[in-house]
C-alpha cells in the first residue's frame, strides 16, 4: 500500500497503552474538553436545542451498546434529516471531534461505543419507511427503522426483507447495513449485503453521496457492496434501498432431537453433504433447552443433548421432498426423533425458543460472554467438540445456540465476574475457542462484526499488507482517524491495544434480546 499512514497505524498497535484510551474515553469530570461550549452551540444551531444532549446524566444511556464496554460521548445528537446528519458531521470535524454513528445500540462488538468521546450521531429519529414498491420488490427506508417494523409493513404484501437477526425486534436497518447482519435465514438468502440495492451516505467531511440504486448490477465500481459491513468507519448511512423477496408459498419447520451436540453436528454436515440447503438450520444445546423450555413450552425434550431447528420452504411439492430428505439424514446421523410443526402456532413457539435463548442465559447467569465464530461446515463436529472440551477445561458452563448450517457458532460462556480471576479466564477461554475456529479454516466473526472487540484478532486472519489495503479504503473515504475511531482495524491514534480490554467489550450486561 502506498499510503504512509497504513504502516504507522499498524506500528501504533504496539505503541498505545490502555491508559491513554481510558483517559480519552472518559473526559475528566471536572470539565469538558476545550471548546465544548462552542461545539454544543454549533450543533444546537444546526439541529435544534432538543436534538442535542450534552448533560452527563442524559448521556449515560448512550455510553454503551449491547456490550459492557462503556465510554461517554461528549455530545449526542439526534438528526431528523440527511442534511442534519451532514451538518453534525461537518461541525464535529470543524471542532476536531470523533464521530460515532449509532442505531438502536444492540450491536454485539462494541461498534457504537464512543471510545474516544466526541459526537455520537444517534439515528433513531430517522425511522420512516419511505416507500414499499410491491411490483418491483423494492423498499426505501431510513436507517432508524427497526428490522421487525419493516417486516410487519411488508407482510400484507407477501414480501420479506430476508435478513432477520435474532435481535430484529430492536435492531435498526442502519445497523444491519453497518454490520452486514445475518440471521437464521442467511443460510438460504445471504446476509444484508445481498439485499441492499442502494444507499445514501454521509461521508466523513459531510458530503452526501449515493451508491447503487434501485436495481441489481448497477454499472460502475460497487461502492454499495464495499460500504455494507464497514461498521460506521467510512460514513453514515442515511437512506437504504432494499431488495425484497416473495414469502415462500409453503414452509415446513422440523425439530430433530439428538443425544449429543456431536451427533447433531454430524447431522448438519450430513444434510449439507446431500446438497440440501434448508432456509434455516439452527442448533440449540442441552443448556439452552433447559433454560428456555420451562418458559416457552415449545416441546423441546429436557433430556436431549441438542436439537436442530430446521426449516425448508418453497412449493409444497419440493418442501415435501426436502423435509423427507432432512428427516432421513437426521435419522442416519442418530436423531432419536424428528418432529414436524403441525400448525403455525407450533412453528412460532419453536422459533420463539430460538429468539429468547440468549436472554434466558442472561437471566440464569450473573454474566456471560457471547462468542461469534465461523468454521467450514464440515469442520463443525470437531470444532464443537473443541468448544465443549475447552469450556470444560476452563470450568465454565457453556450454552450453544447458533446458525449451524452456516458453520456460524455462538458459544455463550457463563461466569460470575465477582469471582476472582473469572473474567480473565473467560477471556482466555474465548480466545482459545476463536483460535480453534481460525485453525479450522474459519474466521473470527460471522455476523456480529469486529467493532472494538476483535480488532486484535484481525492479525490472525490478515497480513500486514491485507490490513494496509483495508486501511487504504478508510483513507480514501476520508475516515482514517476520526470516523468511528478504534473500530475494525488494529491501531489508530489513542486507541488501546489490550486484548483483554477489547474482548471484554462484548461481555453481555445481562439479559435482553439478541
Amino acid at each position, binding site marked *: *500500500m502506498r499510503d504512509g499512514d497504513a504502516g504507522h497505524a499498524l506500528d501504533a498497535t504496539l505503541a498505545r497503552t490502555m491508559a491513554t484510551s481510558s483517559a480519552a474515553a472518559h473526559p475528566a469530570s471536572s470539565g469538558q474538553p476545550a471548546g465544548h461550549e462552542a461545539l454544543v452551540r454549533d450543533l444546537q444551531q444546526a439541529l435544534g436545542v432538543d436534538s442535542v444532549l450534552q448533560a452527563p446524566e442524559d448521556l449515560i444511556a448512550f455510553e454503551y451498546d449491547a456490550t459492557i464496554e462503556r465510554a461517554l460521548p461528549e455530545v449526542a445528537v439526534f438528526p431528523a434529516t440527511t442534511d442534519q446528519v451532514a451538518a453534525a458531521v461537518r461541525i464535529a470535524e470543524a471542532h476536531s471531534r470523533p464521530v460515532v454513528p449509532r442505531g438502536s445500540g444492540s450491536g454485539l462488538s462494541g461498534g457504537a461505543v464512543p471510545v474516544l468521546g466526541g459526537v455520537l450521531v444517534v439515528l433513531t429519529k430517522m425511522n420512516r419507511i419511505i416507500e414499499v414498491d410491491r*411490483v418491483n420488490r423494492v423498499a426505501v427506508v431510513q436507517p432508524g427503522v427497526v428490522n421487525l417494523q419493516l417486516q410487519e409493513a411488508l407482510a400484507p404484501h407477501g414480501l420479506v426483507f430476508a435478513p432477520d437477526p435474532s435481535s430484529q425486534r430492536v435492531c435498526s436497518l442502519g445497523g444491519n447495513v453497518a454490520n452486514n447482519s445475518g440471521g437464521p435465514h442467511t443460510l438460504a438468502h445471504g446476509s444484508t449485503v445481498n439485499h441492499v440495492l442502494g444507499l445514501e451516505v454521509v461521508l466523513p467531511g459531510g458530503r452526501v453521496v449515493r451508491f447503487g440504486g434501485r*436495481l441489481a448490477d448497477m454499472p460502475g465500481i*460497487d461502492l454499495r457492496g464495499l460500504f455494507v459491513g464497514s461498521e460506521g468507519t467510512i460514513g453514515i448511512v442515511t437512506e437504504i434501498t432494499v431488495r425484497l423477496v416473495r414469502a415462500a408459498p409453503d414452509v415446513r419447520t422440523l425439530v430433530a432431537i439428538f443425544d449429543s451436540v456431536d451427533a447433531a453436528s454430524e447431522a448438519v454436515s450430513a444434510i449439507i453433504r446431500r446438497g*440440501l440447503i434448508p432456509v434455516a438450520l439452527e442448533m440449540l444445546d442441552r443448556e439452552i433447552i433447559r433454560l428456555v423450555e420451562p418458559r416457552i413450552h415449545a416441546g423441546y425434550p429436557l433430556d436431549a443433548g441438542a436439537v436442530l431447528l430446521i426449516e425448508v420452504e418453497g412449493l409444497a411439492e419440493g418442501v415435501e421432498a426436502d423435509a423427507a430428505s432432512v428427516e432421513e439424514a437426521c435419522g442416519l446421523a442418530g436423531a432419536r426423533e424428528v418432529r414436524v410443526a403441525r400448525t403455525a402456532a407450533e412453528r412460532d413457539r419453536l422459533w420463539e425458543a430460538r429468539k429468547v435463548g440468549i436472554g434466558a442465559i442472561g437471566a440464569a447467569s450473573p454474566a456471560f460472554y457471547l462468542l461469534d465464530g465461523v468454521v467450514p461446515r464440515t469442520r463443525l463436529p470437531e470444532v464443537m467438540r473443541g468448544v465443549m472440551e475447552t469450556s470444560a477445561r476452563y470450568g465454565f458452563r457453556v450454552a450453544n445456540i447458533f446458525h449451524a448450517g452456516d458453520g456460524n457458532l455462538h458459544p455463550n460462556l457463563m461466569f460470575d465476574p465477582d469471582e476472582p480471576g473469572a473474567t480473565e479466564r473467560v477471556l482466555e477461554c474465548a480466545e482459545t475457542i476463536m483460535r480453534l475456529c481460525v485453525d479450522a479454516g474459519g*474466521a473470527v466473526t460471522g455476523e456480529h462484526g469486529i467493532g472494538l472487540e476483535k480488532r486484535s484478532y484481525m492479525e490472525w486472519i490478515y497480513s500486514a*499488507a*491485507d490490513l494496509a*489495503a483495508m486501511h487504504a479504503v478508510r483513507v480514501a473515504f476520508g475516515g482514517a482517524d476520526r470516523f468511528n475511531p478504534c473500530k*475494525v482495524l488494529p491501531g489508530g491514534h489513542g486507541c488501546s491495544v489490550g486484548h483483554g480490554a477489547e474482548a471484554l467489550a462484548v461481555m453481555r450486561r445481562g439479559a435482553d434480546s439478541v
Partner: protein
Amino acid sequence: MTTAASALDRLRHALPSDTERPPAHYALDGGTPAIAFAPNDPAEVATLLHEADEAGLALAPLGARTAAALGRPLARYDIALDLRPLDRVIEYVPEDLVITVQAGVTLATLQATLREHGQYLTVDPPPGDEVTVGGMLASARSGAWRGHLPAARDLILGMRVALPSGEVVHSGGRVVKNVTGYDLHRMHTGALGAFGVIVEATFKLAPLPAATRTLLLTAADIEACGALARRVWDAGLAVRAIAVLGARAADAAMLAPVPCVLVEAAGSVAAVERTLRELRSAATGAGDASVETWARLRRLAAGPGATVLRLGVPPAEVETTVAALERAGLTAWAHLAAGSVIARGEIAAPDVEALRRMAVERGGFLQVEVASAALREAVDPTGAEERTLVEALKRQFDPRGTVNPGRRGPGL
C-alpha cells in the same frame, strides 16, 4: 507504441523466459502491446505488476477476452498480462459447497469440476462459459438467472488480488458467512482492474437442481407478455429465469418471430412438474423450448457483430422498454427479475445518450456492453458514478495508473 528497450529488458529479466508471449496475439482496439507475458502463478503476476509500475508502463490483464469491448478504450497499452495459465483449482471441498480457483480457470472448467459432485456456480454471464473467473468478476455481468439466484458478486467468499505495489492481498476467507474486515473483493468486482488484478477467488456453491425445463409462453402482444411474465414471477413457482423477448429477439434466438416469454423451471422433480402445469394453464400458448435458446441469448448479449447495450429499468417496465427498443429497429429482450434489458443492433452515440436518459429517469441505468472503440470514445460506457471516491480509491491502490489506464474513463 514506443517503449524503451531497457524497460522491456528489465521486465524480461524479472520473469522466467518461458512466460513471454508474442505481443501480436494481444491486440486490443487495434493497439498492440510492446511485450506480453503469461505468468505461471500469482507471485509472478505481482512481480510483473510491480515492475510495470516502477517503469511507468501500462498493463492490461486479459483472460478469455470476452469483455474486451467493455469500458473505454485503453489510454495506454504497453504490456499484455495473459492470466490463462493461472488455471488451477486450489481447493474444492464439495461437502462444504465451497471452491477456491485461480483467475484463469474458465467457467466451463469450473462448472465441469462441480458437476461431478452435483454442484454448480449459479451464474450464466454473457457470452458463455468460455469466460474466465477473473474476467467474469472484473466485468460483473449477469445473465438470465440474476434476480432468481445470487450473482457472482454475491457468491464470492474470498479473493486474492495482485496490486501494483507488488503485494498480493486477500480479503474474506472460505466460510459462507464472514464479516471479518472490509469486503475488499466487492470493490474489485466490476472494476475492470481499476484497483489491481484478481488472481484467485473462493465461491459459495449450490446443489444442481434435480430437474430443469424451459417453456416458451406466448400472449397476444408484448404488453400481454410482460404482464404474463410478472404473473409467473409472482406465483412463487420453482423458476430460475423469466425472459421477455421482442419479436426480433425471438427470431434471433431461433424461435417464432413473435413476442414471447421464456421461462426456465428448476428444482426438485415434483416442484418442476407442478411449475410446468401451472405455466401451461396460465398462458394462452405454451410449448417446450430448447435449453439452447438460453445459450443463444447469452451469446447475443455480448457477441461481436453489433453494438450491445444493457439497460436497467424497473421490472414493471421491461416490456414497454423492449417494445420501444424494437420499434427503434433494435433486437431487444429482458430478464424480468433483474430489470435487465438487452438491446442489440446499430445505434449512434446520440441515441445511446437518449436511451440512457430514459433509463435513468426510471431509476435505472444504461451500460454499453459491446461497441466499437469510436462509440466507446463518444459515449461514457458505464454512465455516471461517484467519481470523487473512485478517484480517491484509485490514488490509494494504483496511483500511477498502471492497470488498464483510461478503461474506466479519463484518469481511471
